[in-house]
């Protein structure tokens, strides 16, 4: 593989290698999502029904992703590595796409554990709900990689990331919850797909302006 996609693959593989070596993002995400589900399990009344639990699943997934996104650009902040990537003759959007793919891999790994745990503690999830999780994850990582790069360049990054990301994640939660509990999940899945397409294109196009003056 060469060219643009080759660069994306090189950059994503670098993030996966860093995580396999340092193990400071994925374990935190796994522990957080499991702990959150356990807390919700005891916090929800026994007769609350399934719908509140489905809502809480989406809260858990969004905040778990936030935890991963907060660390997404830490390796690039250290030792000025982001400047090294910006100077490289690759299209700068490849840096964003590589980071989005790596973030998606980490979130996907957390979900592989979180979804069975949710089913065990709360209620079953049908194919529409699972499709919603997949589409929502793509949107979360596409927008989140851009926003976390913006936050990483600022001094108040710990505050800035949730302040920008959470409002942008509201449509994802609406779509995800809709795909999980609605009688017509197709509409919500289409909405999530549209969100993914629009925000992925915007993030792809805007990334260069985030990492350069």
């Amino acid at each position, binding site marked *: 593989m060469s060219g643009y996609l*080759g*660069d994306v693959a*090189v950059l994503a593989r*670098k993030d996966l*290698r*860093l995580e396999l*070596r*340092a193990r400071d993002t994925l374990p935190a995400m796994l522990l957080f999502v499991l702990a959150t589900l356990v807390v919700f399990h005891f916090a929800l009344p026994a007769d609350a029904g399934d719908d509140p639990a489905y809502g809480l699943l989406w809260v858990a997934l969004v905040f778990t992703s936030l935890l991963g996104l907060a660390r997404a650009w830490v*390796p690039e902040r*250290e*030792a*000025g*590595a982001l*400047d*090294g*990537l*910006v*100077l*490289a*003759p*690759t299209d700068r959007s490849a840096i964003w796409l590589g980071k989005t793919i790596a973030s998606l891999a980490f979130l996907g790994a957390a979900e592989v554990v979180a979804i069975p745990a949710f089913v065990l503690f709360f209620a079953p999830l049908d194919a529409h709900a699972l499709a919603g999780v997949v589409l929502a994850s793509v949107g979360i990582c596409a927008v989140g990689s851009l926003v976390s790069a913006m936050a990483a360049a600022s001094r108040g990054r710990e505050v800035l990331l949730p302040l920008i990301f959470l409002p942008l994640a509201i449509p994802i939660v609406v779509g995800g919850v809709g795909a999980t509990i609605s009688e017509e999940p197709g509409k919500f899945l289409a909405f999530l797909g549209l969100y993914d397409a629009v925000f992925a294109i915007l993030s792809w196009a805007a990334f260069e302006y985030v990492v*350069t*003056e």
Partner: protein
Amino acid sequence: MAEAPLVRARAVERSYGAHRVLRDVSFELDAGDALVVTGPNGSGKTTLLRLLVGLAVPSRGTIEVELDRSRLGFVGHEPLVYRELTALENLDLYGRLYRVPERRERIGMLLERFGLWEARGQRVSAFSRGMTQRLALCRALLHEPELLVLDEPHSALDTQGAALLDQELEDVAGRSTLVVATHEPERLERLTTARLSLGTA
């Protein structure tokens, strides 16, 4: 007709908020020139070099560099590498992004030349400052840049490392255009074709 200069800076100014770091800096460089930039701490040497490679933009004036990013090499105050990757992995990453032909051979040659071959499998986080600086130099030289921009490249290097760097700069001088900010201009005396002394703006 004379060739256009490789680098042309015209009345460059750079401010951060109300603080002006650079004021009215102008110069031209032709291919093969070696510009040594001197000045006290805070005089804007680092800022000027970041402007040259495109990591910052002037507040006023213009800097034109007639090369694309693939032909620029830069060593700044930070090594621009990943601390949790090994020396070899870092150079391989940049070698792929810069499409360096015969990448493995070139990486091996640079690691050998800068005395890092034995440490090639170690993570950069375990490196001393001097070793990290040597790796930064390998990274900047990897793709044989036509314009090499170095910000205090001798800092953190021991006597042997500094001598290696001097030798490397002598080798690339003439083939590449050099811009070096330094507090030791005498080290580059033999290569220097132009000087720029910055005062506090």
